C-alpha cells in the first residue's frame, strides 16, 4: 500500500512538473511580449521620425537640447547598446554623425531590427540571466526593458518638438 501511494505521488508530481516543463519549453510568454512591444515601439518611433519634415531635423526646442535628428539617432544608438548588452555582443551601429532624416530613419530601423532579431532567439529563462559586473549588473530582461524605456523617454520629448512645429504626433501605441 505504502509503495502504491509513493508511485501515485510520484506520477502526480511528475505530471504537475510536466505541465510546468511544457509551459516553460513550448512558450516563452515574456519573450513574446517583449517582441510584440518592441515591434510597436519601432512602428511608433518611425512614425514620429517620419512626421517631422527633413528640413526640421535640425530643430531644437531650447538650446540645451538635442536637435530632433540627434534625438532620433540617440534613440537608435542607445537602443542598440542596451540590446547588445543583453545579447552579450557588440552593437552593429557605429558612430551616428549624420542626423539627416534619411540617415536617422535607417539607424532606427537597424537598431530595432537588431533588438527584435536578438530577442527572438532568447528564452524566458534566458531573460532572468544576470549580465555585467558590480553596479552595472542587470538581468537580460532589464537590458531590453531599459532600452525600451529610454526610447519612450526621448520619443516623448521628440513628439513635443512636433507639436511646436504645429504637427500632431502619431497616436500613442504600446
Amino acid at each position: 500500500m505504502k509503495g502504491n501511494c509513493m508511485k501515485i505521488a510520484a506520477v502526480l508530481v511528475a505530471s504537475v512538473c510536466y505541465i510546468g516543463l511544457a509551459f516553460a519549453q513550448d512558450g516563452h510568454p515574456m519573450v513574446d511580449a517583449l517582441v510584440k512591444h518592441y515591434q510597436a515601439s519601432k512602428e511608433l518611433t518611425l512614425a514620429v521620425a517620419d512626421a517631422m519634415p527633413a528640413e526640421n531635423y535640425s530643430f531644437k526646442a531650447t538650446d540645451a537640447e538635442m536637435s530632433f535628428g540627434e534625438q532620433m539617432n540617440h534613440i537608435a544608438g542607445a537602443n542598440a547598446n542596451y540590446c547588445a548588452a543583453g545579447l552579450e555582443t557588440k552593437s552593429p551601429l557605429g558612430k551616428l554623425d549624420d542626423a539627416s532624416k534619411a540617415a536617422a530613419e535607417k539607424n532606427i530601423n537597424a537598431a530595432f531590427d537588431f533588438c527584435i532579431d536578438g530577442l527572438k532567439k532568447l528564452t524566458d529563462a534566458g531573460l532572468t540571466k544576470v549580465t555585467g559586473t558590480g553596479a552595472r549588473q542587470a538581468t537580460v530582461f532589464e537590458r531590453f526593458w531599459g532600452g525600451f524605456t529610454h526610447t519612450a523617454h526621448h520619443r516623448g520629448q521628440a513628439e513635443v518638438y512636433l507639436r511646436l512645429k504645429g504637427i500632431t504626433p502619431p497616436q500613442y501605441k504600446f
Partner: protein
Amino acid sequence: MRKLSIVTALFAALAVSAFAEIDVKATIVKHLKTSRDFTLKVAEQMPDADYSFKLTPAQMSFGEQMVHLASSGEYFLSPMLGEKPKELKPASMKKADVIAFMKTSFDATIDKVSKLTPAQLTKTYEGEGGKQTGFDLLLGLLDHTTHHRASAEMYLRAKGITPAEYQF
C-alpha cells in the same frame, strides 16, 4: 533510480519557470519605485505658478500630465484585480495637492503590484487595448508614465529649468 532522476529533472524545470515569474515582478516593482522617485522630482521642479502651463493649446497642462500619469495605475491594474477603475482626483490642481495625490497613487500602485500572484501576471485579459497579459499591463503602465513624464520635461525646458537627471 532512473525514475527518481527524471522526477528531479522535472522539478528543476518547474523551478526555472516559477523563478522567471517571481523575478520579473520584483524587477518591475524596483523600476516602478525608480519611476515614482524620478517623476516626483520632475513634479517638484515646476513652480506652483506654472502648473497650468502648456506648450501648445492641444496639450494637457503640466499639472494635468502629472495627475494623468499618476492616476493611470488604476486603469492598468484593474483588469488583474477584477475591479472597475476608480476615478481618482487630487484635492485641487495646485502643486502641493497634485504632489500629495501622486505620492498616494504611486504608493498604492506599488503596493498592489507587490501583491500580484504569478497567475495574475500570466493570465490574458480583454480590455480597451485588446488582449493583454498581466505582464503586458505592467509594462504598459511603466511605458505610459515614461511617455507623459517626457512631455512634462519639455515643459520644464520651456520654462528654463533643466529636468532632473534621467533614472531607470
